[in-house]
């Protein structure tokens, strides 16, 4: 069922990067996955032994544009997940 999955690269920033201990990772998700599904996958992968990943507090950019969590992701999307920006 390889053709039913895609591998995407995800970047993390700021406190989320610190909590996860990685700045980017590759994740395999089903095709037509949404941002929300990706966030749950990350929570499953990293969040098991910590309460640090509160999905509702996170923001997601796809191709450097902020998106809603129902956005469908594609294999060549640049995906970044981070806490709310705090400005300059």
């Amino acid at each position: 069922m390889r053709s039913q999955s895609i591998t995407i690269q995800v970047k993390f920033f700021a406190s989320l990067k610190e909590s996860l201990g990685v700045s980017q990772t590759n994740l395999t998700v089903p095709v037509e996955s949404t941002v929300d599904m990706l966030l749950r996958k990350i929570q499953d992968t990293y969040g098991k032994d910590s309460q640090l990943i509160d999905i509702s507090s996170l923001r997601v950019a796809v191709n450097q544009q902020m998106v809603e969590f129902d956005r469908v992701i594609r294999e060549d999307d640049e995906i970044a997940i981070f806490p709310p920006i705090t400005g300059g």
Partner: protein
Amino acid sequence: MSSVRVQEEDFSLHDEWQACRDRLAGNAGAVVSFVGLVRERSNTGNVSRLYLEHYPGMTETSIEQIVVKAQQRWSLLDIVVIHRVGELQPEDQIVLVIIASAHRADAFAACEFVMDLLKTEAVFWKKETRDNESVWIESTLEDVSRSQEWQE
């Protein structure tokens, strides 16, 4: 004309102002500059270090969008925005905005607008080290309300 840069290195108001002045013809009557400095004291304690993280590419785009909004709203001849990232200390320069216009009202309003939006819409995350404790900080309510005032 506009120029947006995000960099670790310090900047020189003098060099940027000189470059800006060289680009301007005799139309410019007003140049307003803003330099932001890291303060020793925040609302919650003494700051010994400030760390700014950015998202290369998206951060520059977020600032360019602010610049475009300013250009649409006022009659401007030149805008320069330089924002530093990485490790900073109290008294360090953190941000520079230079805006040139024919008449001073445009440059003043646009410079304040750019600063207010940088504080809320520019893609940065800040970590303060105060009294040996490092904390990721959030936008202040004051910043958000100043930024919202421009939306009326």
